[in-house]
């Protein structure tokens, strides 16, 4: 019997939701456990197997000096490294601190700032080491996670769309919340993958899958302004779960300075 490929799951600054998506694959979980060797997944098992690992899934953003070193060690031990979720691919909601004075933030939460070790920024995994693939979303879509594992086990590229949310709405026949109701919606600049979730619930997309390929954020911002969104709130719309993703960060910058 050939040895099973090894899988490791790592966590940085995050809510744990993305790695728990693996456990949310209820119908497939036991089959996955038969197909791959779960070598490091502290959320699920106290059994630990030494690296190197065939596949590393990395959740969370880099926010401490120690984590800068840790992700480099993980990269060295990993044949294929996948960043999963908005924290790992776009800095996460905690990247909102990149645009604030970190001392003010510590003071808002902690009585003893001198006890707190933190960098002034929250950054994506690819800002520190080469990443072989990214799964977007806050949280990731478990169907995409399953597709990723399936593709890796079969030596092919995962089928993950890079077009915008608008395509999902059109395919699902969902009425456009921006055109029909005048609700400012980030769908045109946001990558698909959630399954048309927010517009399907009569709600505007809030961008949790991060920027799509070549997003026209400037046009998006103009449309939001035309719909009556204050400049300050245009900035805040881009400064959320993918605050440090390039396109969203720079569009946020433009409106924060305005």
């Amino acid at each position, binding site marked *: 019997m050939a040895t099973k490929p090894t899988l490791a799951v790592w*966590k*940085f*600054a*995050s*809510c*744990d*939701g*993305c790695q*728990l*998506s693996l*456990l*949310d694959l*209820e*119908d497939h*979980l*036991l089959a996955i*456990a038969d197909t791959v060797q*779960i070598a490091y997944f*502290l*959320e*699920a*098992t*106290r*059994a*630990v197997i030494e690296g190197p690992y065939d596949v590393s899934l990395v959740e969370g953003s880099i*926010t401490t000096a120690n*984590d800068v070193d840790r992700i480099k060690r993980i990269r060295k031990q990993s044949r294929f490294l996948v960043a999963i979720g908005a924290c790992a691919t776009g800095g*996460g*909601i*905690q990247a*909102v*601190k990149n645009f*604030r004075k970190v001392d*003010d*933030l*510590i*003071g*808002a*939460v*902690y*009585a*003893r700032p001198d*006890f*707190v070790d*933190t960098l002034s920024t*929250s950054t994506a995994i690819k800002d520190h080491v080469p990443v072989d693939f990214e799964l977007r979303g*806050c*949280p990731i879509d478990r169907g995409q996670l399953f597709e990723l594992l399936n593709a890796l086990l079969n030596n092919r590229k995962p089928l993950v769309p890079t077009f915008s949310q608008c395509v999902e709405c059109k395919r699902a026949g969902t009425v456009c919340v921006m055109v029909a109701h005048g609700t400012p919606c980030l769908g045109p600049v946001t990558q698909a993958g959630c399954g048309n*979730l*927010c517009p*399907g*619930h*009569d*709600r505007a997309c*809030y961008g*949790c899958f991060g920027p799509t390929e070549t997003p026209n954020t400037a046009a998006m911002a103009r449309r939001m302004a035309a719909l009556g969104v204050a400049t300050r*709130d245009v900035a*805040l719309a881009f400064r*959320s*779960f993918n605050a440090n993703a390039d396109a969203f960060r720079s569009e946020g910058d433009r409106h924060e300075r305005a």
Partner: protein
Amino acid sequence: MSALETAAASISPNPSPPRIIKVDALARVEGEGALYVRVRDRQVQDIKFRIYEPPRFFEGLLKGRPFSDAPDITARICGICPIAYLTGASQAMEMALGVTLPPGPLHDLRRMVYCGEWIQSHVLHAYMLHAPDFLGMADAIEIARAHPGVVERGLRMKQLGNRLLEVIGGRACHPVNLKVGGFYRAPTVAEIRALIAPLERAVEDALETIRLFASFDFPNYEDDYTFVALKHPEVYAIEEGRIVNNRGLDLELAEFERHYGEDHVAHSTALQGVLYGDHGPAYLVGPLARYALSYDQLTPLCHQAAREAGMAPVERNPFRSLLVRGIETLYACEEALRLAKGYEEPDRPAVPVTPRAGRGFGCTEAPRGICYHRYDLDDEGRILSARIMSPTAQNQKIIEADLKGVVQRNLDLDDEALKWRCEQTIRNYDPCISCSTHVLTLTVDRD
């Protein structure tokens, strides 16, 4: 030498090299933690439950943002109990804006989706994270191999909990359909009715689960805990109530911070909850506290299952929290079933809200205990200040106290067994360490 070992060495008064047991990160909890224990002359002298989850500064991030951002942003504190944050933040904002959810479908949907979170979180923790300790196994996959059918039952229940979250909330993790005032879109009657049959099966599965857990061996350990939980006059408190304890303190949410606060200690990035006065500082939130304070409001079937499992109306052994999670899972299934059967579509999916200045409080029973929110808003409805007290932060001192007691009684265990017993002790609290900072390195230093 790690920072922790350096710390251990520097506080050791013993010139001979101390016996140090070092263990890598704590498995099967959500987040990252560590434990340091110092033993001298067979006495536990010091215990530090250290959380090294990187801080994420949620209270700071919220400043200046509109009130309507708070539910979705605070949900990201925890991927396993987002409903606790979505609901607590919404409730607090509703108070600040002077609206209340009327009795009826909106109220029922909020409670029903919360039942979904209890089911998925309790089943995940009990079956996949905690049960392996009682069976001496590394994880649920080992259980699946040794006892076919058991883990499958757990996964079936967890999937149903997630389905409730999906039908009402849009997705299982970080649901998108909840907001201040209610929901973006109300589920149809057909969507909710489709949950009835699987919920009926889940009631049976929950009863089987309690029977299974009752067959486990529970380590002997009890303490006279100060239990703190929400209490509601009619139902087992989940999404609303007064904050009460078993020492006679019965508070409105607005009074909470007069009696309870948080300490910031050097060894943890999570603040530690404290109760001021004679019965503090440590107190316990979560299943044991809820069960002790609201036993009477459980259903007849829950009472029967508890009696058959040999449970008393108050359980003071934290290892038996596993059984209480079983009872609460049964309750959540029964309650969701009752609400699903009675569901009718509301006239509108949400109560309208208008921005204004104000202060609001919210508190709900996350699966691992009370989760408290307080916000101040300016006259545009923007957040001036925020305070969030997560359940695991509140439980930190009691976890340390339990660890001290458990280690003291188990000094004869070898290092590996003692380490495992400590992990199990921490897992009694289902600690969501992401929440409290918003895995355990165990260092036992003994002579």
